């Protein structure tokens, strides 16, 4: 049996999952005191899976590879998941390095070393796929490094700005 806490759209659910002995497709799940039958139909299901039947409701889902979000018919929903049986709990890395999410051309830089920034504040503009893309601060803090300048091209994953 496995036990998780899942927070979705601000509501937290405790989910207990039990494999049914007969089959790898069926699970018995206990959530908020209710017993549900869950089926992950075999077939060409990759990890993460893309369809599942919960309590007779088929869900065609797209899951983020890092399980940060789930897309179902009702839209996209942010999720947080915690393994309640994990012995060691590590903190998130708290990485403040802002890397290029896509190769492109730096068209503007709005911050300098020493600037204090808020979450969501514009750091720079990156042109890629014919669009000006504003790159925002992933966390609040102080800019400790700016490695790019306007006119420079950056590769995928290249470090551009560091906030700490």
């Amino acid at each position, binding site marked *: 049996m496995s036990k998780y806490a899942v927070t*979705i759209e601000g509501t937290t659910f405790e989910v207990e999952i039990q494999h049914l002995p007969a089959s790898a497709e069926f699970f018995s799940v206990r959530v908020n005191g209710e017993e549900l039958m869950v089926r992950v139909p075999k077939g060409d299901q990759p990890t993460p899976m893309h369809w599942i039947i919960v309590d007779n409701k088929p*869900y065609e889902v797209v899951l983020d590879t890092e399980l940060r979000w789930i897309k179902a*018919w009702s*839209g996209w*929903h942010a999720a947080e998941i915690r393994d309640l049986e994990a012995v060691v709990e590590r903190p998130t890395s708290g990485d403040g390095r802002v890397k290029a999410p896509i190769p492109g051309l730096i068209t503007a830089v709005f911050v300098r070393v020493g600037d204090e920034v808020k979450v969501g504040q514009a750091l720079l503009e990156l042109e890629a796929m014919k669009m000006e893309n504003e790159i*925002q601060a992933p966390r609040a803090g102080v800019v400790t490094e700016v490695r790019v300048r306007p006119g420079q091209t950056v590769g995928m994953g290249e470090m551009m700005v560091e906030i700490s």
Partner: protein
Amino acid sequence: MFNKVLIANRGEIAVRIIRTLRDMGIWTIAVYHEEDIHSLHVRLADEAIALKQKVDDPQAAEILEIAHATGAEAIHPGYSFGAERYDFARPVEKEGFVFIGPPSQVIRELNRKVTMLERAEQAGFRTPRHSDTAFNVGDMEAIRRAADELGYPVVIKARRGGRGRGVRLVRRPEQLERMVQSAGAEAMAVYHDSRIYLERAIYPVLHVDVQILADRHGNVIHLGERCSALQHHNQKIICETPAPCLSEQQRRQVWEMAIELARLFGYENAGTVEFLVEPGGEIYFSDFKARIQIEHPVTEMVTGIDLVQEQLRLAAGEPLRWRQQDIRFEGHAMQCRINAEDPWKNFLPSPGSLRRFRLPGGLHVRVDTYGYTGGYVPRVYDPLLAKVIVWGESRDACIGRMRRALQDFIIQGIPTNLPLHQGILNHPAFLAGRYEAMLTQEAGLNEPADEAHLRDLAVIMAVAYMRRHQAPQPVIPERLTTGWHRSARRLPQ
């Protein structure tokens, strides 16, 4: 009609044109840059020739060489801004090929935006107030003077215009210089011409386009209007016809103005006349596009007319097949642009492999796309991946069908802007057809979900998490192996 036609474009545009040509039994010649080898248009064409250059911005010389070698009789430029390039259309004509579009002289005139607007003004059309001339981006003093004269907010526009590129809304004088540089850089990249002009901003404003068809025998008809007020990153992401935001009188007014403007500029072939409409009721002529638009399928849905087929007939010199009174508009049509953009990362482009790509289908649902399961969204082109177009007997029926179609569009491998559309389709202002109210509010990305639904989603996440651990060869980042795996990012509100 032609036997062989070369399509000098890529992606969904090339796919859409190839389909009509093949419906007509015409041999299709596609071109592709290496980045596009896995695009559907390469696979659907009868012949596909590799290009050295990128395809969205074709140089005439290489295309003409291919046209000669393959025996093409005509060249379709597609309907991106490449269709409006005089330096492409002119050589095509000069070497004796048919250019599927208006004569290059007409393109040249329509490209000079300031002159074109002034000609319309002289003929009595109201246009948005604009600077008298276009500027080099270095000439900040003159630009600043012109902006002060027009008054803020002011819009910077590329002299060459088109596709919302090189456009910036400037609210305060201190933003002007940065915006001019940014707009100029974009215009340079897209049009090879960094010159810009200024226009007084009308805000809030509705964008209404009228589709026209004109033959070379003096006949001009319109095929109704399209309303695409919903913009995101300056691109029209949702579009519909008939426009819910126009009164019956305004509708007839834009129709008539479009026909008069087509006559004024001696237009030929399929074109698009763009208007700005103030919620108060004032109508401004803002641009004349020498091509059809990305949004043309909604017009095809309500009229039953294949616009690409008519472009071919008109370019071949045939007269229009209909008089205005023959055109009938049935029901309502809507288009959503599905972009490869990550709504979780401020709509950054999201190129990559389409691991699963299952299209919605059924009655009155059309999808135009270059994607397929196993296909690829390249890094170097714009993020438009697919267009979902639906028809309904009423606007409500149309919205209901679109909602269902978007729910059934399964794209795995890359994030897309699908959730943005789903949010808009549930937004009360959009449902009421009050576009102007949409401009000031951001749509939420989610439908309201009840507790039982959220519970199911939580169960799915838990099962997915557990299965990852049970996978025989887990490729799990360290942060996922235990505990809170990562603070979930909230969606942009």
